[in-house]
């Protein structure tokens, strides 16, 4: 697999596959930049080194309160730290070119009624704080 159409990302929260409700998913990983520019440095630029890592998971999804689906799962998980599994292309075998991503999120915000006006679908667009390391694996199942 090389480049791919971004229409089949898989997302599981607390083992519940909510992929069919997801309209957008962004996992952002960052490291803090710690400045180490010292006196006497011959560099004409600020110098930085790697600090602590953090990550966020942004999910856009269609609200659905059906049993064990997206809203019931998030509502049950509200206030707790639960496991998330993601895959770049769902339905394709996990490999180095289609890795799975394993991490935990703190479910600290919800929009249970959804957003949108009259005539719109009830949707949510939520950013969750990642509460663990993000493990990228070529072998761990989605």
């Amino acid at each position: 697999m090389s480049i791919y159409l971004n229409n089949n990302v898989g997302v599981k929260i607390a083992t519940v596959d909510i992929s069919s409700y997801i309209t957008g998913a962004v996992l952002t990983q960052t490291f803090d930049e710690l400045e180490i520019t010292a006196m006497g440095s011959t560099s004409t630029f600020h110098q930085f080194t790697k600090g602590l890592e953090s990550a966020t998971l942004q999910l856009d999804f269609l609200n659905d309160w059906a049993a064990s689906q997206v809203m019931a799962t998030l509502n049950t998980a509200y206030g707790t730290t639960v496991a998330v599994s993601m895959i770049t292309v769902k339905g394709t075998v996990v490999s180095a070119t289609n890795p799975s991503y394993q991490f935990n999120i703190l479910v600290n915000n919800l929009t249970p009624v959804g957003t949108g006006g009259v005539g719109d679908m009830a949707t949510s667009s939520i950013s969750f704080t990642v509460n663990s390391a993000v493990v990228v694996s070529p072998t761990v199942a989605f």
Partner: protein
Amino acid sequence: MATYKVTSEGDWEGHSPGAIVTDPDLSEETLAVVVKLGLLTPTDKKTEKE
């Protein structure tokens, strides 16, 4: 060891409904959510830790 019965309508993590899962590889909080959602049900039959 703790055992759980798969009670979801569809497969749960590759296990069919009615299957018994021993010590699922989940954190305590995630397992609590899975049980609350009714995907797994703790079974009465438990074996003592070795």
